[in-house]
């Protein structure tokens, strides 16, 4: 047993469809029935499953173990450093919060005795005890602030951490001096409380980023994909995408995405390029034609000789453009840092003024310094440090419930500023998958037969039927002897008659997709497919206009394919655009002073998503698109985009209110501190009071996405 345990390998799978307790039970108890899987553990928050399996278990076999249970699983590659880096970050912050919280409570316990009248030796003892607790706490919990402040100062800049660090250090030093000289006022409680509240803010910020990252990782498919590679002796084995080499021959089944660039070495099929170019009509390919990674093989199995894999594929070009485009966005300064630019110098000037004023008034340097420290502590941006993260995490939680993942707080800030929306067509305004358009013409028997045959196949058109027919209330008819012929279709016996579902006998005139149902060889019904608009696209466009965001279409597709969509939605459209053209269109708008919200899904939208002031991608987008976008919305409805904009704007309003509250509090507290009325007791009350108000105000965002 121990020998077997030592041989197990640990694998992680992202399973986006984990929704309830039933799914947890089904996965954990169902997966272990596979003899290769020793243990399975579901992480519901991050929508992943951690399994221990025997080393001979290949990725496709494990994925099929998931699909047996009815779940779609995507292997998460061996990038634990990248994936878990953020998680350990917020764990370190949580540790610091715990330590600061413990210290705060104990020092407060001692301080209450001092405030209620302890004097003489008792007060000194309590102050010394407080110092003994506070000094290690400041050193441990304050590290992240000191480090960030030092980095900023060294580069001649200032941020929120500079006044915090200075305030904390001076207050600690002075309190230590007070303690040593038997003074009445020590600010250890104030210092530790400040750290505690600020760490809470930091931790919230980091939790929000982790949560979104978990969701995004669960959606990413590209990592760990691969292909069946056929060797010289016709044996096939599974090769991970990273290990594919030029010259290998991949066997690509219908309905499978290509993992590398190549030329067709056998078979003929049609390829869906929509993720790569935005082109909606599938392209027929035959022997010798080039095909690209990321495109979908929809008709028949083909053999592809790899000519470029990994970083050399056509996608790499787009990735380079994306890198350049993203640099513009990194210049965005977050609202808290913008506030700090004015706040930090103001705080330092005030403290200096207080010190100088009392010195001139003849108060002596000790008294003057005490008052200057009181000013520093009272103005320390305690509420300010909580104002932004508290509002943003509540907003992100609200949006997550309506199906929008927000990657970080700055995304919400930028989203709120958008006044132009540029929307890709294929896969964004439309569903990006075939939907049957003429099912109304079919009678009940034909529909039931269609479903019975379609559900036996993984062909994309069959899957479209399997998805849509049951939703329309169709139940399949019983059929027998069902079998699928690759490249042709499915056939079966129904009441002694031969029924087939497959390629139409006469090819249709246009390039539209179609499949034909035949009974005893006689065509009974030709089902046509088109890429349909998202169900609420028109409402969404209207809502965008209402929100003062001007929408337009930016598509890589041909003008003829875009025109009907543009007409149906009443939008202006730019068509046939390459990734560079899209970048240029965004740059033109930006130069005119507009903030562009880019909504797109394809690989070709990647650079535009990275360049837009803000960007949203649907959950069905290419991995490049999802990586580049600030937010991701799930499901078929487009309306979450507008909800995201509304919530982002509400969040900005709340953040501004919070700033106003914090400033209002300072307007009252600073004069008191100036006049020397702020004792440690007053500081403690003022600090916790203002923080509670700010957090309470942020909680109002909970219902903002109705």
């Amino acid at each position, binding site marked *: 047993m121990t020998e077997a345990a030592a041989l197990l390998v640990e694998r992680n799978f992202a399973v986006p469809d984990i929704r*309830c*307790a*039933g799914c*947890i*039970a089904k996965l*954990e*108890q169902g997966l*272990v029935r596979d003899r290769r899987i020793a243990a399975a553990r*579901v*992480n*519901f*928050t*991050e929508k992943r499953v951690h399994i221990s399996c025997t080393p001979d278990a290949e990725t496709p076999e494990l994925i099929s173990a998931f699909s047996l249970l009815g779940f779609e699983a995507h292997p998460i590659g061996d990038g634990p450093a990248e994936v878990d880096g953020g*998680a350990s970050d917020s*764990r370190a912050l*949580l*540790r610091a919060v*715990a*330590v600061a919280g*413990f210290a705060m*409570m*104990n020092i407060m*316990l*001692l301080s209450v005795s001092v405030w209620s009248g302890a004097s003489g030796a*008792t007060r000194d*003892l309590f102050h010394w*005890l407080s110092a003994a*607790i506070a000094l290690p706490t400041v050193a441990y919990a304050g590290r992240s602030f000191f480090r960030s402040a030092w980095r900023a100062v060294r580069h001649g800049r200032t941020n929120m951490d500079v006044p915090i660090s200075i305030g904390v250090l001076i207050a600690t030093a002075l309190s230590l001096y007070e303690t040593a000289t038997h003074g009445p006022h020590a600010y250890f409680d104030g210092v530790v409380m400040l750290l505690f509240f600020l760490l809470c803010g930091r931790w919230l910020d980091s939790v929000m980023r982790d949560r979104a990252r978990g969701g995004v990782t669960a959606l990413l498919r590209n990592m760990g994909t691969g292909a069946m590679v056929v060797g010289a002796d016709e044996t096939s084995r599974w090769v991970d995408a990273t290990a594919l080499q030029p010259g290998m021959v991949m066997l690509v089944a219908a309905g499978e995405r290509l993992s590398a660039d190549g030329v067709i070495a056998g078979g003929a099929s049609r390829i869906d390029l929509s993720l790569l170019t935005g082109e909606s009509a599938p392209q027929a390919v035959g022997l010798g034609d080039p095909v690209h990674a990321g495109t979908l093989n929809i008709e028949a199995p083909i053999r592809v000789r790899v000519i470029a894999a990994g970083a050399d594929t056509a996608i790499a070009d787009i990735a380079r453009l994306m890198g350049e485009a993203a640099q513009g966005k990194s210049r965005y300064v977050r609202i808290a840092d913008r506030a700090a630019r004015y706040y930090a110098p103001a705080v330092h000037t005030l403290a200096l003024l207080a010190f100088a004023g009392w010195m001139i008034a003849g108060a002596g340097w000790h008294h003057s310094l005490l008052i200057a420290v009181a000013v520093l502590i009272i103005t320390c941006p305690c509420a300010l440090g909580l104002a932004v993260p508290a509002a943003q995490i509540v907003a992100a939680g609200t949006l997550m419930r309506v199906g929008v993942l927000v990657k970080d707080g700055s995304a919400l800030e930028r989203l709120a500023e958008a006044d132009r929306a540029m929307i890709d067509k294929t896969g964004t305004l439309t569903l990006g998958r075939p939907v049957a358009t003429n099912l109304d013409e079919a009678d009940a028997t034909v529909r039931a037969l269609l479903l019975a045959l379609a559900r036996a196949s993984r062909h994309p058109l069959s899957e479209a039927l399997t998805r849509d027919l049951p939703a329309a209330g169709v139940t399949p008819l019983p059929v027998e002897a069902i079998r699928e012929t690759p490249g042709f279709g499915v056939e079966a016996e129904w009441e002694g008659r031969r029924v087939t579902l497959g390629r139409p006998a006469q090819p249709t005139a246009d390039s539209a997709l179609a499949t034909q149902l035949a009974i005893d060889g006689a065509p009974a019904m030709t089902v046509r497919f088109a890429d349909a608009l998202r169900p609420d696209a028109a409402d969404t466009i209207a809502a965008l206009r209402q929100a003062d965001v001007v929408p337009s279409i930016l598509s890589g597709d041909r003008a003829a394919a875009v025109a009907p969509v543009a007409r149906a939605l009443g939008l202006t459209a730019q068509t046939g655009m390459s990734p560079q053209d899209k970048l240029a269109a965004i740059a033109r708008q930006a130069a005119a002073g507009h903030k562009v919200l880019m909504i797109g899904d394809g690989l070709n939208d990647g650079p535009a998503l990275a360049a837009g002031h803000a960007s949203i991608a649907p959950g069905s987008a290419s991995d490049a698109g999802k990586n580049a976008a600030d937010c991701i919305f799930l499901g078929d409805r487009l309306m979450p985009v507008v909800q995201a904009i509304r919530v982002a704007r509400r969040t900005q309003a709340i953040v501004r209110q919070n700033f106003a509250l914090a400033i209002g509090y300072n307007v009252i507290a600073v004069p008191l501190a100036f006049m020397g009325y702020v004792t440690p007791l007053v500081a403690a009350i003022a600090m916790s009071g203002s923080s509670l108000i700010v957090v309470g105000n942020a909680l109002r965002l909970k219902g903002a996405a109705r």
Partner: protein
Amino acid sequence: MNGLLVLIPVALGLGLIGLAAFLWSLRGGQFDDLDGAALRIFVGDEEEDAR
């Protein structure tokens, strides 16, 4: 005053025990999947026995 000499270490000690317990559970991964933990109570045990 003598009572304090006993009570203060006791208070600090209890607090430290709480802190240590929290840090221990954090390291043990008990806070990794808070939403899942809330749902696990609905997961039946009977099948686990069968295995």
